[in-house]
């Protein structure tokens, strides 16, 4: 069975500080991976996707970057947080031909 793990579960950070969020997929070889952002009470916005190690495509610019250092790992980061970065960050993987399955998410609060 495929499992998806995100870390940390929650973060409280200061404006201007750096950020790194992680996602690990187990049980699936060479998955397509995705990052999403969800404002509190809002919809989901896709940020990045990656088809293979070392390759990341940006969908929307939010002063964030992503990297895929390993086949099963996807990292979201920024050097300088803004208040607008607060929200719920979700990692997802493609399970079959089309389906995307989401992880439990990381709650980020920027003060």
């Amino acid at each position, binding site marked *: 069975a495929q499992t998806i793990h995100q870390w940390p579960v929650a973060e409280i950070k200061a404006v201007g500080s750096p950020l790194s969020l992680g996602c690990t997929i187990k049980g699936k070889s060479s998955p397509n991976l995705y990052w999403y952002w969800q404002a509190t009470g809002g919809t*989901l916005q896709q940020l990045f*996707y990656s088809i293979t190690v070392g390759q990341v495509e940006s969908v929307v610019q939010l002063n964030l970057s992503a990297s895929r250092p390993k086949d099963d790992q996807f990292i979201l980061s920024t050097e300088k947080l803004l208040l607008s970065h607060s929200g719920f960050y979700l990692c997802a993987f493609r399970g079959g031909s*089309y*389906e995307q399955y989401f992880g439990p*998410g990381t709650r980020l609060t920027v003060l």
Partner: protein
Amino acid sequence: QQQVRQSPQSLTVWEGETAILNCSYENSAFDYFPWYQQFPGEGPALLISILSVSDKKEDGRFTIFFNKREKKLSLHIADSQPGDSATYFCAGSNYNVLYFGSGTKLTVEP
């Protein structure tokens, strides 16, 4: 331009009734339409999905009706239960990018 629209924003039904959630989209290139269920504080869970070559998909109490000509689809939840109370998101995809609607918050009253 919002690619996927949902209505209503919120919906309350009684236990045992059928809840109907609506969705429309702009991009004719979309060929895959999933519905997700999300509980507060959790990641969304894939509920049911349909490809644009089909006009109906059933899975237990959940049914998607799809009208490609009108670019509309709907999710019917039969025999609604209090445990179905959640936010439901419709989405449309052109393979690697998934565009979500704004969601419908469903409340099922016992």
